[in-house]
């Protein structure tokens, strides 16, 4: 597979990325250095990095420098490939596995999910009630206006109204002013 632009190989436990160099690549000193840095710093899913180069040139490389940075060295010719320096496992390169989840956090999440579900239902219910109220308010307002008009026809007499004293605070005035209206209310 390709890993961050380098070929990579896995033995099941680890994945190693390999920078392969040819004789032509090493004609230029800058290319060698660039290849070594690329192999050491390339991000990816691998946890080991190797530089592979021909046997002919391996003697010109100082192996300790590679060991210090954790790079492995593979040498090859027409017949074989050998691991001259093993690569060190680089923990920074291993993608962090998800930490084990605390059961109390799981419970908390479940609780919050339940709470959200309840809140969602409450919001829906409130929406429905507001809608019903909106539908109900108009006719009620109209009814109140009608009642107010009826009552306005029979005002409660005041001391100065000129009506006899037995009209004062008489509850029958409002009772009787509704006569003939009760059926209308029931019908509506």
């Amino acid at each position: 597979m390709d890993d961050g632009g380098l070929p990579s190989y896995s033995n099941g436990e680890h994945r190693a990325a390999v920078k392969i160099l040819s004789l032509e690549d090493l004609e230029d000193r800058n290319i060698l250095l660039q290849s070594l840095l690329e192999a050491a710093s390339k991000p990816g899913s691998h946890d080991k990095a190797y530089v592979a180069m021909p046997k002919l040139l391996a003697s010109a490389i100082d192996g300790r420098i590679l060991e210090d940075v954790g790079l492995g060295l593979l040498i090859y010719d027409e017949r074989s490939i050998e691991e001259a320096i093993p690569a060190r496992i680089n923990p920074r390169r291993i993608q962090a596995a998800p930490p084990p989840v605390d059961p109390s956090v799981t419970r908390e999440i479940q609780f919050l999910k339940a709470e959200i579900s309840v809140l969602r239902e409450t919001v829906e219910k409130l929406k429905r009630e507001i809608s019903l109220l909106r539908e109900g308010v108009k006719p009620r307002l109209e009814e109140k206006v009608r009642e107010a008009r009826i009552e306005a026809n029979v005002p409660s007499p005041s001391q100065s109204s000129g009506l006899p004293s037995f009209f004062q605070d008489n509850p029958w005035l409002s009772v009787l002013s509704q006569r003939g209206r009760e059926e209308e209310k029931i019908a509506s």
Partner: protein
Amino acid sequence: MMEREEYKRLYTFGIDYGTSDVKFGPITCGEVPQITENRGYLPDKESIMYKAFEVPRDIVVGRDLPLYLQSSEDLSSRLIYPMRNGVIEKDDEKAWRIVEELSRYALNIFKPADEAFKGFHLVASLSSISPRYMYERLFQIYERIAEEDGTIRAATIIPQPLAVAIAHKATTCVVVESGHGNTQVCPISRYPIRNAIVAVNRGGGDANALTSEILKDLGYGDLARQESFVRAVKEHIGLIPVDLDKAVEAAKEDSKRFNIRFKVPGTRISIELGENAWTRFLIGEYIFNPNHEVFQSYFTRGMSKPKDVRIGNTVFRGMIDFGEAILESVERCPIELQPHLYRQILLSGGNFSWRQVEELKEYATDAPTKIRLLLKGWDITNVKASMAEAPQYSVWRGCVIYGYAVPEDYEWNWERMEGWKKFLE
């Protein structure tokens, strides 16, 4: 045309056809209506006196009636009280003619000259046991008056107990209306509860009859025939006993303490009870409860016993005591309502106006207390009974309030027996 409310404030008219008197007048009368006796006189057209009048009249009503009276012999046939027992028979044409004449008379007294006047909003009040045909006849009369005199724009008829409840600002109560001929017990809960009405065939006239018998026993037989005299004696000497047996016993032991003398105003006539002072208590007791054995001797000697009679569709109970009548009426109402009804019992009508004698209060009481005592005998204790204020006028007052408050556009409804019959626009 002036505003409706302003018009009703001027031209709402109440008329209460009581058994003895008609109370009538527009809302502008204030606290008190006009009163005239509920009677009419049919003069003998062949008499010289009748022919001598400049404007001969078929029927005479109102305050001038006594001026037209002829010999006392024909008074019983020509002087007619059309509503003596609260109900007029369907085919009693004389009575209906008198009612029409009285209604015209009452309305014309107050007919204004104002051009804005287009007839009164007339509210009439009848006994709660009046049958439907009385309503129909009365509306026919009003229609004629509206056409001929222009004094009625719209009319309605309400039962007297409802009018009493309205005048007393009581929307839940029992009204006991006791007049000359009968007594009606009517529960009210914003409407009259018609199927719970109990009618009693006993009223002030029965107390008059007993007083007349007492006067005969005292040797005043000649005076005992004159109803107005008997009535005056009854009102002056009659007492309601707390307990009849104890009161009679005390009065027999100490007759001087209970004695009373009555002098008829403007005459030389006076009567004194002396040793028979105990009979004062019989008069009051008889109204509330005629079942005591002491009354048996009067029945035996010819005084008519109050009987159960059917008038219209209603059976009037003769001997039921007032406590039992109230109980029977209230128990026809929903159970939840019953305690509220007992807590407001309104006593209305002249038959509940009895003298109070402070020095005899151990033995004599007032009508509300007597009602409480009678109901206590039936184990009903949470009772509040009171007298209607100005009992003579309360029906008229209720009529005026009703006419003012009920919407003008509410048309008469025969099912509900309410609303307005319109005659003039």
